[in-house]
């Protein structure tokens, strides 16, 4: 999978490159709109990460020209501007998704995965990790055959974590995807923490192998080995 990163801030660009390469993607970088545009029209990429505020050529302009030339590569916009008008403008210009800086890296990875597998349904009806088993049809969750009694919220939370198992899930992702909260800056973090604590109690208490881990400062992850 090849990703083109058009980002002028060197630190951010470096971090993006390193993080994405670690996640197994092949990265081409560009620091200006012109170069980015040239690369995007000359080579084939699976995804383009586009910063909106670029020297030389504005991100929106690059995007519009690309779309005008029939380049259909999915584009994920990264920008510090979060006003509704900015988002609408970005999406209207042909972007597929929009992420406001500063963003949590796990969320970026999750969005990239969504864009890359677009159109390919992977809605499994049965999820599991190690000896934890989750049946989405009967809504039954068991660990080593023992049923766990989860609330509706905890069930949704576990489902989301299992769908992203092995990947760190940030609080922002949980807020948006599990709690369906649109606004940032609500006291939701506490609510998430409380629910995670309860879920952890039900899933992990009394078992030697812990499955739900907290990655300090980033979020949570479901996996067998500690991070």
């Amino acid at each position: 999978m090849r990703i083109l990163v058009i980002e002028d801030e060197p630190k951010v660009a470096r971090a993006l490159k390193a993080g994405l390469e670690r996640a197994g993607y092949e990265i081409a970088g560009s620091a200006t709109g012109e170069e980015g545009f040239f690369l995007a029209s000359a080579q084939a990429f699976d995804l383009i990460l586009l910063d909106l505020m670029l020297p030389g050529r504005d991100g929106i302009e690059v995007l519009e020209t690309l779309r005008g030339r029939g380049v259909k590569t999915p584009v994920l916009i990264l920008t510090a501007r979060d006003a509704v008008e900015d988002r609408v403008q970005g999406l209207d210009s042909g972007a597929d998704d929009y992420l406001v800086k500063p963003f949590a890296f796990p969320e970026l990875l999750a969005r990239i995965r969504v864009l890359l597998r677009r159109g390919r349904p992977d809605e499994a009806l049965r999820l599991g990790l190690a000896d934890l088993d989750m049946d989405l049809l009967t809504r039954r969750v068991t660990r080593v055959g023992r049923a766990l009694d989860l609330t509706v919220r905890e069930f949704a939370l576990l489902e989301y974590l299992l769908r992203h198992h092995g990947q760190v899930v940030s609080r922002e992702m949980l807020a948006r995807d599990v709690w369906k909260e649109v606004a940032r800056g609500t006291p939701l973090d506490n609510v998430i923490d409380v629910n995670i604590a309860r879920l952890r109690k039900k899933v992990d208490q009394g078992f030697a192998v812990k499955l739900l881990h907290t990655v300090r400062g980033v979020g949570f992850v479901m996996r067998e080995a500690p991070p």
Partner: protein
Amino acid sequence: MIVRLGGLNVRARLTLWYTAALACVLAVYAGIVFAFLRQALYADLDRRLRDDIELIHESLEATDDGRLVWRVAGHSGEADESGRPGHRWREVWSREGQLLLRTAAAEPLGIGAPAGAPAPGSEFEPVSLQRGGQRLRVLTGLEEIAGVPVLVRTARSEEPLRHELRELVFVQGVGLPVALALAAIGGYQLARRALGPVGRMAESARRISAERLNERLPVDNPSDELGHLAAVFNDAFARLERSFEQMRRFTADASHELRTPLTALRSVGEVGLQERPDDRLFADVVGSMLEEADRLTRLVDTLLTLSRADAGQLRLAQEPVDLVALARDVAGYLEDLAQEKGQRLEVEAAERVGVRGDWLVLRQAVVNVVDNAIKYSPDGASIRIRVGRDGERSWIAVVDQGPGIGPEHRDRVFERFYRVDKARSRELGGTGLSLSLAQWAVEAHGGCIELESEVGRGSTFRLGLPSDLSPQAG
């Protein structure tokens, strides 16, 4: 100081206007005086002419052959009252239009034959005639002298009358402009004196800048218009000063609040590098730094929201919102937090309470207030969210069992970054902005947020909103 208006200053314009007004009044006055005097003089002249006609009987007598002659020889050249001869013009005409007698004064020019005859004993209306460079006033009467009906014409010069009128015109023509000029000068001075305080006020206002907002305009006389104006200005300055002060405090507070996580970020990083970190410590240091970055992000997001709200950039939806549903939604959302502290979160509401507004914004306000209540109420307390309506006003009241808020803090808890208990609040992770946001949200919907509190017994935050009175609101 000169207030420029239409190219002229106010003083000059005022003076011009009332000088013009005065000129009009004086012109009318002068015209009326002239007309009255003229009429009075003519009336007097006419009365004398009538006397002259009556006196003709004394002057004439009939000879034996029926001719009329002056009774006194040489009477025809008699002197008039002024002693000057020849001023009294008299003519006696027969009814057939034949001149019978004529005084010496009338000799050279003659009054002329009367046109038509009046009824016996009556008189013609007096008329003015031009004779040889002078104007005469002529009265014609039908008299019967020694049994002979004759027309008596008598005339007097209008010159003395006209002289008097000319004098009047002269006096007015000279006097009125002088009076006008005096009035204009006086008026100008008066306007200058009256507008003087305006100049001083402008001078003072110029001196009052952002740095010296504590100064005020001098109020010479609080009960007159200018004093009132100065008071209004002073009021505006006071409000400006308050908002400047608020802004200054906000900037100072905001930089302090931003500096706190930055300091933590920096020192955690520096200390982490000083040690020889193993993987575990490293992860801990980075994690701790990320937490601070999160805090910064949240703070900046909230500040951005508030500044957009201040700038009026946030557009609010106008949808029907049921406050009961909203309260239940918020309660469901924050229930986990309350449970964690063993608190009971109860919604007390009967039927639907409809308002119009933006669900998300209102929800955020209620979430902030309820979250606050959960934070500050002790474990095991109960928090009630009451919803009700008093006619045009609908409200959500959040009743907590927290420590209460002292009267000295009551007005200020809605200020940005204001915290009743600074240490405690930071420990609980508050930004110090949630109540400000709640207040903004409620006020943006035309409502108001009120706080009742008793130290030691808890607080009640009451979010009042205008009811939705449209029929489908139910």
